[in-house]
């Protein structure tokens, strides 16, 4: 009897572990590939459900043109970084979890595609002005937008953008 109880407990543990494993996600590969060529003004939109933790590793490789880089990163706070030609510029964006958030939801709009099945998302949009105007018009205090976190930055000029992102929604 003790052995049967132990076996039952182990089966419950395995089932729970499988449930936990299902909460790990990679970024939506339907919308983005690992290596992306950008030109002009491209906006990289990183979004997640409030209960998810997201880590995105970004590598930007500018093309060398007459020995000068023409690639500039522009962040929402106004910071601008010119990427040196000989370097692979790498940085991480971490959007931490905002805690427990019951109830299901889903958002599908310009640059944001989040659902309970896929609570993390990264998208590249070639038309940055459409996104920026949409972003400024959204009321972020009202559901469902109050239940997501969004971070974005602009890549100005040509570059090879390598993006890898993974997260956990618990």
């Amino acid at each position: 009897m003790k052995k049967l109880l132990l076996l039952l407990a182990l089966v419950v543990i395995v089932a729970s572990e499988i449930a936990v494993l299902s909460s790990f996600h990679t970024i939506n590969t339907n919308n983005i590939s690992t290596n992306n060529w950008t030109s002009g003004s491209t906006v990289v939109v990183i979004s997640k459900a409030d209960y998810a933790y997201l880590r995105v590793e970004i590598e930007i490789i500018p093309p060398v043109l007459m020995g000068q880089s023409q690639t500039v990163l522009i962040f929402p706070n106004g910071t601008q970084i010119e990427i040196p030609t000989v370097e692979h510029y790498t940085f991480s964006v971490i959007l931490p979890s905002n805690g427990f958030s019951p109830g299901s939801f889903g958002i599908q709009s310009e640059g944001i595609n989040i659902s309970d099945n896929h609570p993390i998302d990264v998208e590249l949009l070639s038309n940055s002005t459409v996104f920026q105007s949409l972003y400024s018009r959204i009321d972020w205090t009202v559901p469902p937008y109050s239940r997501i976190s969004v971070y974005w930055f602009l890549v100005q000029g040509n570059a090879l953008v390598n993006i890898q992102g993974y997260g956990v929604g618990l």
Partner: protein
Amino acid sequence: MTEENLIGKMTEFMTALDQVKKYRELANAMADFAIIIVASVAAFAALNIIVNLLDVFYGYGFIDPGSTGVLPFYGFVVLFIGVLIGIYWVQRKMNSAKMKQWESTLNEGTPGVLKLLQEIQWEKTFSDIRFAKLGFVLYGAVKIMAYWIFAFFLFGVLSGIIGNILHLNFDAISSIVIPLVLVLVLSMKDLRYRYEQVGRLDSFLWELRWFDSEFRRTDFKA
């Protein structure tokens, strides 16, 4: 029947009972085997969770965290060790069964044979044979299932390598069916042996029942 013949028959009979004792231990160890296998699956899943957490929170990049269905090499090792420990544990339990304890009594000759026959608890022996039969069959099934789980993950690793080199991808059904067929083919000898052994245990049980009724009806005079 000469005394020599009688002792020979009795040796055969007691050896068969020892085998039943062994199978009974096997039946008892089957639960342990299942526990060890499920525990190794739990250990693998726990390790997978830890690796995923390290990837997500510290960016170690051990594996692709979303691909939880893919078995990395460490998972293969954990399951392999689990199956090995399970088989070792069952063998140890089976070997712990005390064998040939009757040898010294049997050396006494005909009186020893009668003593042994009188000491046998027939109903318990019948029950032991039935239990041993069940354990013997179930252990075979559980062992095949364990091999199947192991083969499934091994196939996952191999198909990953094949996919990488030859750009061939196996679908989910092939990943389940191919390892199962492979394990069944490789276990065919064991399955046949088990089938025959169960038949032998059946005949043994019926012979014993007949012998028991004959033995009860006979009066022994000194």
